[in-house]
């Protein structure tokens, strides 16, 4: 391990301690803002885990998020909290595997439309069940989880999503995914089971998104399908990941932080027109930064790397 690595590890550790202590100092407003930031950081990073290397644009974020939230709404009062999270993980993974096996053979465009439809399908199923079986559309979430607990759990999940992403990038699965991203036909002829690799990654990504939904559920004391399965979340996550750049692990987080703050500001300041402004922001990002902030950063660091070499050659 080089000196730089040690310094980075110490820096990350210190940053983590500061973040973990934040609830002691922040008031309710800033704590709630910090929760939003962590929520979107995990969602965008988890989205990028799958969509970065495979280049499939998934709009299923809200489907998994909502399933996580509903797992808590249904089981939160009857089971111990860790068990609820475990069940949410299992449901998210199972749903991702089923969806993955049936759709990941589709081309990119069909996949986008399918995932968007999936979120709507799950929402309609929940509405149907609630209206016809329980006869009440909404549910109350009464669990003994404070805002601080939510914050700490999201912080742990943030660490976990980065750790898993880092490990995947160094694994055979990560290498397989890079090859698949370059050329799927070549990947198959190198002996890579392309479908299996994609489904595994989709499931890993979906588990994190489901867990965010589960952890966030106690924040609302009352949920109904339109809250838990809000399609705006899917789009926001895509915008964030694209702004940051989905082909690097830390890219989506770079987009998530400023855009969470922007969306927060817009919904407070222009509640009626915020969706319209978000749409314009989306267009501007796609036109101005097709490879995201990461792409710009890579271009600059390449130029900087080239300049000294040229100077040495001259000398």
């Amino acid at each position, binding site marked *: 391990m080089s000196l730089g690595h040690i310094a980075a590890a110490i820096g990350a550790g210190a940053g983590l301690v500061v973040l973990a202590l934040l609830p002691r100092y922040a008031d309710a407003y800033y704590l709630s803002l910090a929760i939003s930031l962590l929520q979107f950081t995990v969602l965008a990073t988890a989205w990028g885990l799958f969509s970065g290397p495979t280049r499939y644009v998934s709009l299923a974020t809200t489907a998994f998020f909502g399933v996580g939230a509903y797992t808590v709404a249904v089981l939160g009062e009857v089971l111990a909290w860790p068990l609820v999270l475990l069940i949410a993980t299992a449901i998210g993974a199972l749903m991702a595997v089923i969806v993955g096996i049936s759709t990941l053979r589709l081309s990119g465009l069909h996949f986008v439309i399918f995932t968007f439809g999936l979120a709507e399908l799950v929402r309609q199923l929940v509405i149907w069940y609630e209206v016809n079986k329980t006869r009440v559309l909404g549910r109350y979430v009464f669990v003994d989880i404070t805002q601080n607990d939510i914050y700490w759990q999201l912080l742990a999940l943030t660490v976990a999503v980065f750790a898993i992403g880092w490990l995947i990038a160094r694994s055979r699965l990560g290498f397989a995914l890079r090859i698949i991203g*370059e050329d799927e*036909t*070549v990947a*198959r*002829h*190198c*002996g*890579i*089971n392309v479908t299996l690799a994609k489904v595994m990654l989709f499931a890993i990504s979906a588990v994190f998104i489901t867990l965010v939904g589960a952890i966030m559920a106690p924040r609302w004391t009352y949920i109904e399908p339109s809250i838990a399965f809000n399609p705006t979340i899917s789009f926001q996550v895509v915008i964030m990941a694209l702004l940051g750049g989905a082909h690097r692990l830390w890219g989506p987080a770079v987009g998530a932080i400023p855009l969470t703050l922007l969306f927060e500001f817009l919904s407070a300041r222009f509640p009626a027109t915020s969706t319209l402004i978000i749409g314009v922001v989306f267009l501007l990002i796609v036109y101005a930064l097709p490879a995201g902030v990461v792409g710009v950063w890579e271009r600059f660091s390449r130029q900087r790397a080239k300049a000294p070499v040229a100077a040495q050659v001259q000398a």
Partner: protein
Amino acid sequence: MTSPAIAPLLEVSGLTRAFGGLIAVNTVDLSVHSGQIVGLLGPNGSGKTTALNLISGVLRPDSGSIRFAGQAIGGMPAHRIARLGLARTFQLVRVLDGMSCAENVRAGLAFHRPPLSRGEIDQSVERLLRRVGLADRAGVPASGLTYIDCKRLELARALALKPLLLLLDEWLAGLNPSELLIGIELIRSLKDEGLSILLVEHVMDAIRSLCDRCVVMNSGRRIAEGRPDQVLADPAVIEAYLGVSSDA
């Protein structure tokens, strides 16, 4: 179990695949024996590449059987066929542009069953790059290679699978005369190492000097089979390439 020495490494019989009304490959028989180079010839659009795609698992056959090293592989997914020891290159050369040359070769080594050790992989990357003449390019991005170097790299990646059979789809096309000589020598040296090769090719010099046998296709059907000089003199083959002469 050891198969009898006379059983071909690759045996294709009655292979058929249609796209809508067009029968691209029509009841084709073809075999490659161990240690042989077999040429698959025919005018453009005669179904050669489709035949390779059926053998390597890109496409599923409509009917017919493909046996490779004692196993029926017709319709098997491409990654399983690759793991059995069947490697290929592509007509339009496909290197992984975003990766270095070493990583391109590593792509062919990293997914063996059972997996190779890290040390074995590192050694093989170096050996294979040297084998195709790219030893000094290990760290260079594949996007910066010349056309012939891309072809070399693609070949190294195919060889990384430790194949029993190599399918080359017009691997010599587009090379200039001096590159062509290098390319022919490279393929010959692979044969000398015991590799079996099925090659789709239009370069007649290469076919004459490399192939033990040739199979000629036209409009999806096999129209001739035999030694290169025999099939190239066959009236049906000449007709397929040049058309019927007007005074006939």
